[in-house]
């Protein structure tokens, strides 16, 4: 169980501080596939990097009751749209590096996914297309052997067919105890992939619902996000009308 309690993160600067996360409480159990949604700047990436220990924070983040440290860090893996692989190395060299560093590296899964996405094993990653790089990034996060797989916009730059394939493959290969925390803007696409949606707004959790409940309520994930975030559908029409009036009067 990943437990986040009273998490607060303030980015300090010379002109003051920006509160990126405030009073975040979240528990994620084994086997959950959690979608993390919110506008740009809502705090999604900050939340993920806090869990991974990339930055300091106030509050507590526990993994099965233990603070995240060198002892249990390998139980977390991470895929990011910024990419965390070594661009000069080949997938084969990455496989060896991961094998050396992470005891529970999933060899068979690595081979299966590399074959499925037809990625060359002996070409440096810098020669891959953006889509292929994203695929490789996610493959390594899935093959590290972690229980909790964190993903930050991992499919930015992949085409729709590619993404669809990934969701299907993910659902097919994940083992019951593997947990995913996926930050994305592709709300409509992941609706049938995630089991729970967590919504962040201005650094706070403003919504947390299971997709089963949404189904029962006959609401789509996108509607839930729009309602919870206070999306104003008339905003565009209002602006256009105002501009029309100005044109007519001017």
């Amino acid at each position, binding site marked *: 169980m990943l437990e986040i309690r009273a998490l607060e993160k303030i980015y300090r600067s010379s002109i003051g501080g920006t509160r990126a996360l405030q009073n975040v409480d979240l528990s994620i159990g084994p086997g959950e596939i959690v979608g993390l949604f919110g506008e740009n700047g809502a705090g999604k990436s900050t939340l993920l990097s806090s869990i991974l220990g990339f930055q300091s924070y106030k509050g507590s983040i526990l993994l099965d009751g233990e603070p995240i440290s060198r*002892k249990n860090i390998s139980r977390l893996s991470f895929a990011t749209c910024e990419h965390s692989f070594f661009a*000069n190395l080949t997938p084969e060299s990455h496989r060896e590096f991961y094998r050396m560093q992470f005891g529970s590296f999933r060899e068979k899964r690595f081979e299966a996914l590399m074959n499925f996405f037809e990625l060359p094993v002996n070409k440096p990653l810098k020669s891959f297309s953006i889509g292929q790089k994203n695929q490789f990034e996610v493959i390594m996060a899935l093959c590290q052997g972690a229980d909790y797989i964190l993903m930050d916009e991992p499919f930015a730059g992949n085409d729709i067919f590619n993404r669809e394939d990934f969701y299907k493959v993910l659902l097919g290969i994940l083992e019951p105890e593997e947990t995913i925390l996926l930050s994305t803007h592709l709300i409509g696409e992941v609706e049938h992939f995630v089991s729970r949606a967590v919504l962040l707004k201005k650094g706070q959790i403003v919504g947390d619902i299971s997709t089963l409940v949404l189904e029962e309520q006959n609401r789509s994930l996108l509607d839930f996000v729009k309602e919870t975030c206070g999306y104003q559908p008339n905003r565009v029409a209002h602006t256009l009308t105002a501009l029309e009036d100005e044109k007519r009067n001017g």
Partner: protein
Amino acid sequence: MLKKHFSMAMYFPPGYEYEKEKNAALLLLGIGAGLSLRFFTDLFAAAEKLYETVLGRRVLKAGVQAVPFAQLVQGHWVFYIPLLFLLFTAIPWRYFYYYHATKSIYLMRRLPRHSILFKSCTQGSVLLAGTSVALLTILYLLYYGFYRLVIPAECLP
């Protein structure tokens, strides 16, 4: 590739193009060693001072002592300062490599063995510095051999 055989790559960040750094270090080492050849001019000049000509014969001066070896090679080390500078400035350079092209720093900071990140940035410098010290030791032992050959035993300090 990473651990099976000895490879210099093991001492640098994964995928780091260490060849340029290695070549620059060897070049600086070579320049330092090349400039140290002036040792021979100093050595022969020091040896010459031990002799005088008496009745047309070249003989050792009575009770004369040669310039100590350490004094002869003194000042040579200054030529290795650029090498030291290179080896030290390369450490932050290697760290910034993890932010270049991708954010592989995210992977390095997630490794269960945290020391891997530190080692990957520093080991290369230690290896190159160690190699340089070993080569220089051999070179100066060789010079010392020449010193002992050229300077008569009774004039050794």
